[in-house]
């Protein structure tokens, strides 16, 4: 069990960067460094992360960072891994760090290819459930009913389940995490670091401007997402799914908080009708039945 006091004090995602006040991604980056340390090379496609480290000539990243085109994170990371292997560079973690757009949509080809090839890297999808960097347009990872600028009356399709897509690639480690559960996130990253081969972790990132909630509630939103079952915390290893932390008890529907609590606290779900909420609740419930079968 990770103790906060034992985590390193040093910051490697340096303060005074260009992230929004209350940015969930910023928290995730700090936690990633607490988990993995400074011998981590980030490969970042076009996304919030490529902008919050501030414009040239400064950067908030205190370890190497390669920005790359939107769809190419996993491919560029494959190249970095190959170069280090050929050159005998050891004890460095190559970490592709992409948004949900660069993972579920435009980046899915490169991701699928890289993991199918058995590339030895960690791929983190930080999921704020829209193309936030370009101003809140919908992505494949946006949940049903959510307002975005390209779904002004609410998205009509459900959230794409990329973790299960990754699990279907039979890679050594797939996990979901959330910034509101830092010990869980850190332990998963540390576990991934020790495994050889492709590792995929999707981190839920509440986003104040995109989800429309006050900046102080970022962590609270992530907690609600997990407690309502909208976002499960799990790991998949050797084809077996294991629910973690608070998610472990939530197979029992009665233990899941009703999703209204989550939906009503975010402006992006403001227009949801009773029917929409039922659709979403059904989706949550059937997803959990599916997870239960995979355990």
């Amino acid at each position: 069990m990770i103790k906060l006091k034992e985590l390193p004090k040093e910051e490697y995602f340096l303060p005074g960067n260009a992230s929004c006040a209350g940015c969930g991604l910023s928290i995730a980056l700090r936690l990633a460094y607490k988990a993995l340390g400074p011998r981590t090379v980030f490969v970042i496609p076009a996304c919030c992360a490529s902008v919050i480290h501030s414009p040239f000539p400064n950067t908030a990243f205190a370890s190497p960072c390669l920005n790359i085109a939107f769809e190419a994170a996993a491919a560029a990371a494959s190249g970095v891994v190959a170069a280090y292997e050929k050159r005998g560079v050891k004890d460095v973690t190559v970490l592709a760090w992409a948004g949900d757009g660069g993972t579920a949509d435009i980046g899915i080809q490169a991701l699928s290819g890289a993991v199918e090839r058995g590339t030895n890297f960690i791929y983190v999808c930080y999921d704020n459930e829209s193309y936030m960097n370009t101003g809140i347009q919908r992505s494949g990872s946006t949940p049903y009913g959510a307002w975005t600028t390209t779904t002004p009356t609410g998205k009509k399709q459900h959230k794409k389940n990329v973790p299960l897509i990754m699990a279907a690639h039979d890679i050594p480690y797939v996990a979901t995490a959330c910034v509101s559960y830092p010990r869980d996130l850190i332990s998963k990253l540390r576990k991934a670091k020790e495994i050889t081969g492709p590792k995929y972790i999707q981190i839920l990132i509440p986003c104040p401007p995109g989800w429309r909630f006050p900046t102080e509630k970022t962590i609270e939103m992530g907690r609600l997402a997990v407690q309502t079952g909208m976002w499960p915390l799990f790991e998949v290893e050797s084809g077996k799914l294991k629910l973690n932390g608070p998610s472990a008890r939530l197979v029992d529907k009665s233990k899941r908080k009703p999703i209204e609590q989550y939906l009503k606290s975010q402006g992006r779900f403001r227009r949801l009708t009773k029917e929409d909420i039922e659709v979403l609740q059904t989706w949550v419930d059937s997803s959990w039945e599916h997870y239960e079968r995979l355990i």
Partner: protein
Amino acid sequence: MSEKPKSLKDLPITIISRPMTGSAGETGFWRTFRPVVDRSKCTNCLLCWIFCPEGCIERGEGDVPTVNYTYCKGCGVCANECPVRAITMEREG
């Protein structure tokens, strides 16, 4: 620290940026509310430290949290998450 270039002679060969605290400037300017820690209530649980998006709550002696107001954007996550309500958000200026 990255010196701001003055002419193309100061530029690297390609778009290379160097690590810097305050890469976007003194972001403390952004806030309208500032977090104030009541030491008498604080239990040094470190939740404010781990959850601060900016990483600008420093762990002082005995893990006492100290806010770095140069960079604190005033988001209020620390105040919202403190389990003993030891942090209050006070209006700036």
